[in-house]
């Protein structure tokens, strides 16, 4: 774990240079100032110990609470809700029931039901790896990596409706307005690369998910912690490139002038750290302009690597490029990268209400090779040890049909599957299970952060992620609205212990 940035470089009555600088202005200015103020400038300065609480740069790298297993996270978000019984949760008993009316309690978009027509899994499963994990024919490439993967088959969420379920998977709450997992991670750990944002999101080419920016917002935390959208084509970050009629050299001349004027303005206002921060922010922006294009420049990758991610084929090239970018981002110290598979509405994502076979074959086919490529690439470079990869959607799907005809399944938040790999997670294991139809989680029993109910709630997943990053989910808090708010809520939530290596 690299925490060099948080070590004091100069001391002022016990304060680090940065702490000192942030408290100097007594306001919440949000970035590191190293650019302009590096070197020995502060070495001879002293500072009054006035007993004022320090305001730290919110994005300066911070020490985790304990030794972390993972440094960064890549969350592959299968938006729309992939069917667990057709992917990783093998239900032999469901095949023979295909087409029969069965008694089973379900709750989805179409409301609650107690009996419906069963839809048998539409793909065959076979065993992979030393662990012998059953994986459906949708994912022959991911199947090769099951020995690195920990499957959680008893996931539960509070909502079977996209809007609120997406919010919960991303922010822990079904209510809009809370900060996202990526925001919490950056709040807790800061960023080790000042030239790139610490929380990045990449969208499907079909568009954003429903509720758009709410899925990567920082809610009641400052905007410092919200995600930056990263695009694999065109300008990678909004406003990153100056327009054609402002060439870089001209912009540099402008920046030099700006720095000079701002410094003169600062001369008679020297105790205002916000002004200094704003001066520095222009230099950081300049560096971001320089570094971000390099970070997204895939021409540096070998033909073999590109092929590994499926960049050589039309159907996998988009998601493959996103996965390869995700690796390049975590390599450069970005804490939290989220990649969406699926966008917009209906069959443009995993939301298979009508023709499940067509829908899932399409989305799995687009993502299987890229995801396998990502796992292989991270593993061979050793990055997998410190990068936590998460796969899953906002919920799963029901074992039964939604309509009178067809294979489509409605949403299911009573039980679904997610998986994790790398970042200190045990490989080749599966925890939790759903009933023999995959309708609801039945194990493990009570006491796993979900009150009295069976299964691992989204909160348990979040607790596990924070724990792997060296943050105690029950202590990482942010004071807002008169309360110490936590990602996992008020009640204590334990990480999923069986997953921890």
């Amino acid at each position, binding site marked *: 774990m690299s925490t060099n940035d948080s070590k004091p470089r100069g001391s002022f009555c016990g304060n680090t240079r940065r702490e000192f600088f942030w408290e100097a202005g007594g306001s919440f200015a949000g970035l590191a100032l190293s650019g302009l103020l590096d070197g020995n400038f502060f070495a001879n*300065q002293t500072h009054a110990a006035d007993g004022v609480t320090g305001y730290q740069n919110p994005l300066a790298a911070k020490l985790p609470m304990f030794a972390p297993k993972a440094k960064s996270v890549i969350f592959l978000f299968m938006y729309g809700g992939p069917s667990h019984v057709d992917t990783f949760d093998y239900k032999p008993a469901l095949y023979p029931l295909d087409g029969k009316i069965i008694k089973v309690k379900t709750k989805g978009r179409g409301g609650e039901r107690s009996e419906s027509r069963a839809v048998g899994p539409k793909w065959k499963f076979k065993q992979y790896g030393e662990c012998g994990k059953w994986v459906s024919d949708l994912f022959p490439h991911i199947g090769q990596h099951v020995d690195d993967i920990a499957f959680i088959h008893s996931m539960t969420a509070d909502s079977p409706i996209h809007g609120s379920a997406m919010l919960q998977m991303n922010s822990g709450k079904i209510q809009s*307005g809370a900060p996202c997992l990526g925001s919490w991670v950056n709040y807790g750990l800061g960023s080790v690369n000042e030239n790139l944002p610490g929380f990045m999101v990449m969208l499907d080419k079909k568009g954003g998910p429903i509720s*758009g920016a709410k899925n990567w917002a920082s809610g009641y935390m400052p905007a410092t912690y919200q995600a930056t959208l990263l695009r694999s084509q065109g300008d990678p970050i909004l406003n990153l490139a100056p327009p054609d009629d402002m060439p870089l050299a001209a912009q540099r001349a402008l920046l030099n002038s700006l720095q000079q*004027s701002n410094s003169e303005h600062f001369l008679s206002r020297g105790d205002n750290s916000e002004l200094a921060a704003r001066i520095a922010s222009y230099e950081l922006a300049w560096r971001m302009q320089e570094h971000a294009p390099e970070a997204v420049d895939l021409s540096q990758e070998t033909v073999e690597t590109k092929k590994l991610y499926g960049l050589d084929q039309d159907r996998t090239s988009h998601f493959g490029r996103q996965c390869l970018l995700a690796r390049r981002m975590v390599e450069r110290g970005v804490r939290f990268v989220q990649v969406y598979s699926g966008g917009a509405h209906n069959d443009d994502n995993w939301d298979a209400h009508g023709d499940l076979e067509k829908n899932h074959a399409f989305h799995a086919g687009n993502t299987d090779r890229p995801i396998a490529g990502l796992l292989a690439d991270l593993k061979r470079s050793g990055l997998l040890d410190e990068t936590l990869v998460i796969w899953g959607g906002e919920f799963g799907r029901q074992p039964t049909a939604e309509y009178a005809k067809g294979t489509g399944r409605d949403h299911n938040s009573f039980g679904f599957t997610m998986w994790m790999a790398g970042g200190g997670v045990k490989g080749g294991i599966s925890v939790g299970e759903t009933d023999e139809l995959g309708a609801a989680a039945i194990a493990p029993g009570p006491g796993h952060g979900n009150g009295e109910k069976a299964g691992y709630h989204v909160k348990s997943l979040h607790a596990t992620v924070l724990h792997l990053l060296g943050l105690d989910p029950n202590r990482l808090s942010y004071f807002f609205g008169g309360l110490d708010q936590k990602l996992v809520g008020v009640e204590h939530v334990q990480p999923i212990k069986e997953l921890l290596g």
Partner: protein
Amino acid sequence: MAQHISPTAAFGAALAVFFSLSCSLQVIAADFSRDIQPLLAKRCFACHGPDTQEAGLRFDTAASATAELDSGYQAIVPGDVDASEILSRVTSSDLDLQMPPEGARLTADEVSALRGWIDDGAQWKEHWAFRSLVRPNVQEHSVGSSAGEINPIDVFIQAGLAEHSLPVPPKADRRALLRRATYNVTGLPPSEQEVQDFVADTSPHAWEQVVDRLLASPHYGEQWARHWLDLVRYADTNSYERDGNKPHSWRYRDYVIRSFNDDKPFDDFVIEQLAGDEIPEPTAESLIATGYYRLGIWDDEPADKLQHRYDQLDDVVATTAKTFLAMTVDCARCHDHKIDPILQRDYYSLLAFFQNITPMGDRQMNPDFIEQPLPKGEMTPAEAKDIARDRNRRLQEARGEVKAIKQRIKEHGEQARDELTKKDLKAWHEKVRQLEQEKAQMAAALVVTEYGTTAPDTFVLYRGNPHAETSPELLVEPAFPSVLKAATPTIEPPENGRSTGRRLALAKWIVSAENPLTARVLANRIWQYHFGRGIVRSPSNFGFAGDPPTHPELLDWMATELLRQGWQLKGLQKTILMSAAYQAASTPNQEAYAQDSRNESFWRFDMRRLSAEELRDSVHIVSGAFNPKMFGPGTFPSIPKEVLATQSKPGQGWGNSSPEEQARRSVYVHVKRSLITPILADFDLADTDTTCPVRFVTTQPTQALGMMNSEFMQQQSKVFAQRIAGEAGGPDMADTKSCVRRAIEVALVREPTDDEVQHGLALINELETTEGISPGRSLELYCLFLLNLNEFAYLD
């Protein structure tokens, strides 16, 4: 070109001056309200407070904190530091004994305050915020000059400065002061003429005339409404999957602007928003005001309807209690408040006032619940509503007919499409069109309604779970928070029979003389929006864990002053603006800084950055594109397609406004919760999902990228340059020097210095000769440079 100090050297020199100070520590006797209670609340109450009492110990009352515990220890023994277990625990190095068990240790200052306070007898005082409001005697606080000649505000501020041996700050220079006040009061920069006039005006009433002019400006309402809109989580959409539009929400925004401009008494303002439908004679305005209840997030497809119902009520409870009372009542939704004396019962008793409110709708917004046609002429609101209801019914009927005919055609194929059916379909289509048109032309408001005169029962819900079992002993009636010892509310349903009258009872109590909070909270907010921070820095939390007031007597004086002025704001605002404290320079003072770096004492006026709206509006003013048109439906600034692409349906719910419409003030920008205009989002617009009492001020490289590279800034700098070329003598005649001079005058509203002009010419020259930029473009880039200056974005 003039000589310039290198940036880093200038920077260094400035810092060197201010930080070459020795360590010093001022010791001030511990004050219970300021030093002890917040400490106990923040660090001890979680385990030893109102809700949880580990080891039988609680620190929220004197009796319990000093009682002998089962263990035989006494946490606090007044006057006996050595016998007080608390001190050995907070200083212990034994991990098993030390308190608090988690988080940072208490600082040396905190321990010393605690020790001092126990030594002095460990006196408990009633919490400052809950004490009844008494007007402090200004005379008693005056230092030096006699109180009659000095602004009462300065009496309190200067007493505080004297107590800390800090000097009274010098006055800000006139230009800085005018710029500060003009932005502060109107959200816009002063004009060049206004600066010239004020700088030249030597009369003793010059400043007062400026203050009167600013407070009378229609832009005052736009600026101060914006603060209120932050508090009431104003937005034009519902969030969640569809993030659909709230009909007529903009009328609420306009209502707030008009209310501020009219200096509407705050008690009326509160009553209208909370119960504008329950007052004896509701008006269009008072009905619009009740849109207050409908501004929050709403899930049209909740996973658990009952849960969502209570989440919606919680939004109203939380927003109301925080905004008007600065009480975090919502923390007591699942259990008694962990820190403040607010019981879970108090939460549900407050919720009971809102229990009978209709929801926004079910899947679809229900016009019967949320839409109130605005009465015309002699019509009463009820009649207008009946007319609209009847029209809605006919519309629904007509739509049903259209649907039925279409279905018939679908089922029976082409043979069903005979002449008669076609004619029928056409007629019904026409009917639908007509009714829709009528509906669209009807002026209506987004309002609150209730189910009738009787409300369903309200129960305390175990752990806040709406599905929890209820029982008679958990039943609560509407009641005010018990800590305020208020009388039982008198509730009478209004004559129209449409509601319970509960909200009117609540509203009246909120602004009643027996409630000490509302006036304090309002006074604090007014001060906050003038000075950048409240007397209480946590303006929506006056509880034990909130920040204690730095100037409690000043706060109470202002609160009583508001009451004395019949709850009107402008009188107090004028007193504030006339004070020396407001007119103080923002310049540094190294000794004062050393002693009080957070400026607790107001030894200067704090600099601040322009808000997101002020920044965007200023760019429009400077470029000349600004459109001062007030009121009406929201405008839609162009949003780059990359940003629209983040929506699941790119562009959905976002309109196209003409360039002129886009150049209106930012307060008129349509607030779509999931799609915030980038420049506003970059500069820390309030998050609208919950009430926002203080905006963040973040500084990030993405802001710099937007300020330099965004379409908006690039385009506005072009408009600005065209303006300059015109004003400096026309594009052909204008020489570069006069363009540079004029651009500085316009952007910074002051005379340029020769150095600056030389600097600008040097930049333009460099761009043209070294970088090959065309002369016209170089001026545009120079304009962009000016808009990026710290001087442009910050106020002294």
